């Protein structure tokens, strides 16, 4: 696990924001919505294993089996 993923997520966030703005400006609200949703899904795919690790770590620390 490295710090790189934070920058990656930040970059995706910026990109999705810009894309969203461009699509809304040209009158395509539906596509803008889809792009935002796709961005959320992509980021979620990236972090889901890490969230899983966090939860298992919490479980082992407090011994909740």
């Amino acid at each position, binding site marked *: 696990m490295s710090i790189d993923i934070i920058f*990656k997520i930040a*970059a*995706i966030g910026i*990109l999705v924001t*810009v*894309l969203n703005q*461009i*699509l809304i400006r*040209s*009158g*395509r609200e539906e596509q803008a919505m889809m792009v935002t949703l796709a961005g959320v899904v*992509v980021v979620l795919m990236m972090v889901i294993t890490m969230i899983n690790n966090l939860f298992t770590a919490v479980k082992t620390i407090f011994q909740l089996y």
Partner: protein
Amino acid sequence: MLKIVGMVLVLISSTLIGYMKSLKYTLRRQELRSFLSNLNLLITEITYSQITLSEAFNKLSETSEPGVGRFFLLVSQILNSNEGYTASEAWEIALDKVGNINLSQDDIKILKSFGKGLGNSDIYSQEKNFKLASELLKKQLLDAEESSKKNERLYKSLGILIGVAVVIIFL
């Protein structure tokens, strides 16, 4: 090293795809405008100079811009080929045969219905046919201008941004 080359390639190709998409809108607008002005020239040739259609098309092909000029040249070649095609048949065949034209289906339909009346009546009826076609084409031109204003910049920036997105996601 290889990674950077790949990134650059992805960026360049997606940018180019965006540019090509946006270029289509520009070209359609230009071709419609060229068709409109050429139809006006053609009706002048018919009513005033009264030269034959194949000569008139040949003349137009020299002055108009490349895409449309190629079409007019094709029409005049078909008319000159001595295979017995009428002007409207030659017009329709040329419309089907000329590749690399950026007009939409509706534009082609208008041009085809215009071609049906081409060269089979007296000058006054021809003038009416030209007027109708140029009115319809003007409408299409307005539509093309609107859609190009809406989509041209969108596709340009969309190409670049999607390239950047792909690069970042696969980094």
